[in-house]
């Protein structure tokens, strides 16, 4: 692959396009917030998250234009559209959390822009992969020991690391670090993985020597996550791992074998953990327990149904009927108030983000950059698919968040970091010294 250094003349239309898209996204977020204020008779002061959003968008656009003039023009507007939509949604569902979510948006944008200040070749990521991964795992173990839950109840007691009133979920950071590690490791061993293969029956598979460390790291992650009963994140990790392994090795057999392994793990989880068994049963047939275990799922489906094609309008539906709608069921709330038009827009926005990410992977100049872009895209895609599929009863419901949209600072920050990395990977101008 070769790079495509673009001249300033070629870059200008893309900048204009990004500005236009951001303006459109801003109009959408502003109109929603105004409609919410009117519909719910809220004070005009409730507009401030949109103002902050506008400041983030303007600052982001101008700084990105300076540091990454030839970046992908769709990524940042799409991320900002979804994050702004999420702000509208949080302001509508849990107004008391709107301030904190706005603060996290500032931090997310800051993290994204901060990443672009670092060397664009990302050697700092690639070279110290073990440091990053071990650091992430250490953080995770630390939360197991001293973590807490901001709600003081619930099974996720150890997932939160309290620093003042801000809580962070280290498993969110671990997602990115794992992709970085895998991209770096696989890129380094790609040549040998593809050449030094062993014959298993009619298939050529990479020798176990290359897979060993990967599988080991992988098992640590999975053990930790199963210990935390966070099956959603475990599934997500495994899917990302399989996709990256396939992309690195080109072996479809690994994909098939890995999928079988995933199903076996799921079956094991079903028998070992009541939580998993319950989730699967509720998914398979929620109707008999609609007033008990399946209450959330059934109510969420009813919310989707009540949205119809055009939705009830922001502030006009009753998504509050679904317990903890703002985190796990943000998608159902969008379905109720923005209708099918809204959900298809969210699906299209996320799908576009993922496809742009895969395009960045295809255009990347280095195996590490290819695998990193692809891994991050798959991470974003699979996470979105898991939660949307869970809400729509295609797969069992898992507790992962809808990227950018769901309430939760850790998730928002992580999503912005992913987009930041993708933006860096998409930069096609000649590196500035």
């Amino acid at each position: 692959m070769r790079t495509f250094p673009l001249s300033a003349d070629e870059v200008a239309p893309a900048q204009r396009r990004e500005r236009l898209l951001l303006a459109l996204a801003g109009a959408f977020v502003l109109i929603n917030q105004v409609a919410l204020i009117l519909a719910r008779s809220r004070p005009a002061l409730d507009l401030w998250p949109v103002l902050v959003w506008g400041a983030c968008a303007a600052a982001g656009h101008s700084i990105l234009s300076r540091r990454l003039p030839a970046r992908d023009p769709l990524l940042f507007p799409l991320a900002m559209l979804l994050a702004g939509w999420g702000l509208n949604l949080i302001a509508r569902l849990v107004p008391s959390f709107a301030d904190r979510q706005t603060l996290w948006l500032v931090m997310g944008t800051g993290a994204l822009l901060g990443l672009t200040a670092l060397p664009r070749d990302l050697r700092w990521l690639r070279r110290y992969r073990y440091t990053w991964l071990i650091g992430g795992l250490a953080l995770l173990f630390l939360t197991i020991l001293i973590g807490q839950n901001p709600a003081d109840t619930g099974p996720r007691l150890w997932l939160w690391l309290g620093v003042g009133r801000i809580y962070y979920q280290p498993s969110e950071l671990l997602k990115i670090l794992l992709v970085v590690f895998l991209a770096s490791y696989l890129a380094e061993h790609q040549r040998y993985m593809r050449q030094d293969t062993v014959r298993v029956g009619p298939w050529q598979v990479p020798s176990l020597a290359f897979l060993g460390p990967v599988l080991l790291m992988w098992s640590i992650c999975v053990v930790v996550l199963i210990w935390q009963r966070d099956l959603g994140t475990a599934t997500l990790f495994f899917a990302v791992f399989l996709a990256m392994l396939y992309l690195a090795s080109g072996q479809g057999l690994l994909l098939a074998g890995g999928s079988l392994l995933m199903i076996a793990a799921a079956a094991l989880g079903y028998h070992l953990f009541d939580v998993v068994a319950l989730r699967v049963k509720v998914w398979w047939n929620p109707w008999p327990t609609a007033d008990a275990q399946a209450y959330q799922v059934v109510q969420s489906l009813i919310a989707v149904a009540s949205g119809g094609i055009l939705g009830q309008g922001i502030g006009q539906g009753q998504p509050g009927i679904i317990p903890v709608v703002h985190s796990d069921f943000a998608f159902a709330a969008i379905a109720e108030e923005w209708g099918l038009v809204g959900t298809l827009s969210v699906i299209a926005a996320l799908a576009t983000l993922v496809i742009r990410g895969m395009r960045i992977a295809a255009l990347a100049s280095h195996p590490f950059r290819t695998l990193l872009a692809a891994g991050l895209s798959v991470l974003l895609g699979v996470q979105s698919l898991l939660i949307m599929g869970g809400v729509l009863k295609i797969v069992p419901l898992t507790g992962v968040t809808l990227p950018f949209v769901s309430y939760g600072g850790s998730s928002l920050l992580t999503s912005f970091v992913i987009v930041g990395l993708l933006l860096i990977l998409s930069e096609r101008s000649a590196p500035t010294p």
Partner: protein
Amino acid sequence: MNETHTAPRDLVRVALALLIAFGVIALASVYWSVIAAPDLLARDDNARNIIAEQRIRRGAILDRTGEVLAFSQETPNGLTARRYPQPVVASAVGYYSLTYGTAGIEAAYDSLLRGDEGRDELDALLDDLLHRAPQGGDVRATLDLRVQGAVAEALTGRAGAAIVLDVPSGAVRALVSQPTFDPNTLDAQWDALVADQGAPLLNRVTAGLYQPGGVFQTVLLGALFATQPDLSDAGAGLLTQPADIFSEPVRVDDLTLDCLRQPITDTPTLADAYAFGCPAPILALAESSLSSEAVRQRMEALGLLDALALTGFPTVTAPATLFPAEVSPTAHRALLAGQGALTITPLHLAQMVAAIAHGGNAVSLHLVDAVRPPESSQWQTPSAPTTRERAMLRADVAAALESALAYAARTSPDTAIAAPPNVPLFGHSALAFAGPQKTPYAWFYGYVRPDDAGEEAIVVVVVVEDERNPAVAARVARAAFTAALQNDEPSAD
């Protein structure tokens, strides 16, 4: 392409797989939002239906003077709560409950009160689109809060029923059933109300099945007047006939029926027997000249065998009695005595008395006389089927019965109690015995004529349960007459 590098083909495959998955999500979105939506939304556990119901600005129910009997109050969260400032009208107005449904006027005019009917199509569509709370229409009842209150007070502590209505309009001025309930606390008390032996949720006026007992004497008299060929002077001749057997007790099954009170006259007539509720003479006359079939035809003509329509009230008024296909001699006797299997509702009796006061013609009973559609200031006549005034009695029979009632009201001290000051009363008292315990019920039914022309009348029917003294029912009736006549004066035009 380098063998050692990620193949673009593989990247495309992964991207394609993700795209297909997003497509599946999109299809599932279409499925739940559009295809499966009707079934899901109709589910009982869809709280949106309840919330939508609670958002409705249900219309008000007013009495004839504009007094508010029921209205919906907005709560701070944009929902509404139904309030009943005058629980005393509960028997007529009924209740509106999310959990337990509707009753009374609330049930009969539900769709108007909710705003489902009487609304402009475009307005309704706009309301729906803009999520404006639907506004319902108002209903004006014929009830008179003062009369209702007076009757309820007179019946305090007693189980029973009373109805006051105007002739010839058929407007119900008071409808009291006791024990009753407070619709404001219905949801909280429902279980207790249902379990209560006194059946507070039963509307005794429209659905209470009572033995007519001595009330049946009026039916028999009407039948005798109609069938006696020698009624030369409007039936009155029959009344002046001396009664040979007078105060003898009458045995019906294991029941001994007697006069309500011994008459103070040496030459008792049939009119005396009727006034004092002596069963023997009328029974003897009826047994000798009326077949069961003739009785059945009389009852049918008087509407006692059909369900009654009361406009403004759900049409659940019970049919009085299923007339037995074959009547044995003992059953025949019990029937004539108003005992045995025979039951009627106070509403049926009120219709019959109204017909007597209305020259033999039925009146159209109604509890509501005007409705006001949402966002309108004009009261309109409700679109109810106007029943033609059916003839229940021949005019001469009605006149003869009126004479008998007038005589009874003058002669019987028990009945005379009901008379309001300075207004002539037409009335009759009776006792009935119900069930194996022979629980006595005291009846009063009759009317006064507020005008001299003899066109209008105020009809009152009272039944008091577990009461052997007919004067108790008459006292309730006097309270009703007095209140109704007082109210008539200022509003007379």
